[in-house]
């Protein structure tokens, strides 16, 4: 019987899942991903995780709980660095330890350290170690690694072409998804950490709501990460965290894109890095656009209500449409 490895559909899921799926599949391992977020999953996570944690971390605990009785092991890599400039948020660094300390009766946790700045070739050393742990040889590991990279590249290409992460993953699986044609009245950049923006439950489906309001949504995944990194180097001292630099770079990118009508920042209540990112965005968007580009920040926690978000989005869009009428 094949080995089953659980993959919680939260946090880095939206950035790296195709890679790990392809890698494990090639080795003949079954990857079990947790179901899309529901109220029950979030409630379970919030109950077990430490109270001060941000909602994405609580949610991650919830997703781990859905997997714990179904799989032989759970994959929670310790994401430390992807390049030499930045690390992940401290909660990512301590994630396997937090999960282990907070949840009881877990299957083994595979908590390989992903520190890609130490070696060339990104994830290769981690893949080799993983394959060795699971009893595969170097040759098999290399083949699986190549295939994983291939899948990840295809995924990145779809994101750059304007597909949202879940659509792109579906398309990789060969499902039919709607195209990326843009014909809405307004163009909004919706920026934020992928695990916050694309989780339809905790983001209260902001993107879906905007699309229904006839808005073209632009996200940070649609821009090449190296460009985002270059742009985020504009502030006097580079931010320490990987995703924060991407978000900040994306706001500078969309500031330069002529057709953008406004920028929305989606953040989690109590998110440490975002306390800085949000303030920098607010100050710099106003300064660099001479106060012309509207900026809205939406902060989300377990108590955020659907109606409240809808009202705020509607008001924002009305304001943009009015401005356009007057301009």
């Amino acid at each position, binding site marked *: 019987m094949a080995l089953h490895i659980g993959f919680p559909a939260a946090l880095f899921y939206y950035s790296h899942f195709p890679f790990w799926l392809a890698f494990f599949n090639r080795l003949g391992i079954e990857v079990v991903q947790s179901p899309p977020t529901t109220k029950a999953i979030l409630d379970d996570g919030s109950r077990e*995780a*430490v109270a*001060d*944690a941000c909602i994405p971390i609580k949610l991650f605990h919830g997703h781990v709980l859905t997997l714990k009785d179904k799989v032989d092991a759970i994959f929670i890599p*310790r994401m*430390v660095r992807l390049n030499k400039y930045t*690390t*992940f*948020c*401290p*909660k990512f*660094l*301590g994630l396997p*330890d*937090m999960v*282990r*300390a*907070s949840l009881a009766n877990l299957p083994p946790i595979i908590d390989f*350290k992903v520190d890609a700045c130490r070696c060339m070739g990104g994830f290769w050393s981690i893949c080799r170690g993983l394959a060795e742990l699971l009893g595969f040889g170097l040759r098999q590991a290399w083949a699986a690694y190549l295939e994983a990279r291939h899948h990840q590249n295809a995924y990145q290409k779809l994101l750059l072409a304007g597909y949202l992460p879940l659509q792109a993953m579906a398309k990789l699986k060969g499902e039919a998804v709607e195209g990326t044609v843009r014909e809405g009245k307004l163009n909004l950049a919706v920026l934020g950490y992928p695990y916050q923006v694309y989780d339809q439950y905790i983001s209260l489906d902001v993107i879906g709501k905007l699309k229904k309001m006839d808005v073209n949504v632009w996200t940070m995944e649609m821009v090449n990460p190296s460009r985002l990194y270059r742009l985020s180097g504009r*502030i*006097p*001292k580079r*931010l*320490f*965290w990987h995703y924060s630099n991407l978000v900040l770079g994306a706001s500078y990118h969309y500031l330069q894109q002529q057709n953008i009508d406004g920028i929305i920042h989606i953040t989690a*209540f*109590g*998110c*440490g*890095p*975002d*306390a*800085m990112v*949000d*303030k*920098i965005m607010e*100050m710099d968007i106003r*300064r660099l656009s001479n106060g012309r580009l509207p900026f809205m920040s939406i902060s989300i926690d377990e108590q955020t209500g659907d109606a409240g978000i809808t009202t705020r989005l509607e008001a924002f869009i009305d304001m943009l449409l009015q401005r356009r009428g007057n301009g």
Partner: protein
Amino acid sequence: MKRVSFAHMGYSYLGFQQLVEDMGFEAIVPPHPSRATLDRGVTYAPEYACIPFKMVLGTYLEVLERGAQMIITSGGVGPCRAGLYGMMHEKILRNLGYDFEIFIFDPPLTGIWTFFLKLRRVLKTAGVSWLAFVDIVRRAWAKLKLLDELEQTATVIRPYEINKGETTRLFHQCLKLVEQARSMKEITAAREECISLLKNIPQDRTRRPLKIGIVGEIYVLLEPFMNLDIEKTLGEMGVITHRSIYLTQYTTTDVLSHGAQDVRQLAHPYLNQFVGGHGQNSVGETILYARNGFDGVIQVAPFTCIPEIVAKSILPRVSRDFGIPVLSLTIDEQTGRAGVETRLEAFVDLLRQRREQREAKRDAALLFGY
């Protein structure tokens, strides 16, 4: 003469004041943090920034209004946010229209060359030679060390004092003595006088104080206003506290070196990764306190402090494994003194009961052999 200021952290301002004045600047001594300082900081800081950020921002606003032209502060390497605070403070203050110079010193190990160049620029503005600077730093350092020593001495004596509040009163008297001491000789003399002052407090040595270790984030640990005088409060409840961080010790282990390795080693089975700030230390130090026979540990952390949240989620397990009660206090601008005192009282009661139960059990075992 340039007016220079710095952040307020515990009693270290006395050392920094001397440093700045000896360099020939006029020191704008930051006021003691107060509700008003905090409120001003809260107005302009990001909502989810931690309370040290807000307090320091409020302090800067106050010193700038009192005419400071230059601010000297520290940087950091992350992944804790504090390393970016200098830059953020500057950005926010400039955005508000303040004009000033700011020197942010990152730990020398991360870039000895930039550190050197920055320092050279400061010395040039001051017109101080390197040789003179070495002497200035030596004396400021001696003062900081003395301040730390006095604080420690006071904490050890306080639970034994017969007249409640006397230690604190004499400690503040000592601060005045230390403030006046300038030369190495005067500092040594002040040390002797202060120590004898504190040691001569009437004490009841028959008491058996509990021992509590305090771990957590450096700013809230060092600034009594922020931690609601936790050491004094506990001391007057009859508890000896040991704080895991003192400024001079922190500077030698963490700023000029790579951190306290043994404490991090201890934390490894529970938190196998440096997470910035003092997160990993908090776990390791809790284990250390448990091994050294302390009765309990209190973790003090600012609200939204990321490294301490990581530690906080792991501490319950450490507490179970090592049988040492841990209380986590989270501090933000809404934290009230009465609430904290109640929680401390409850915690101390719990520890007392535990000790009594343990001792009853031990006595019972003795009887059995009899």
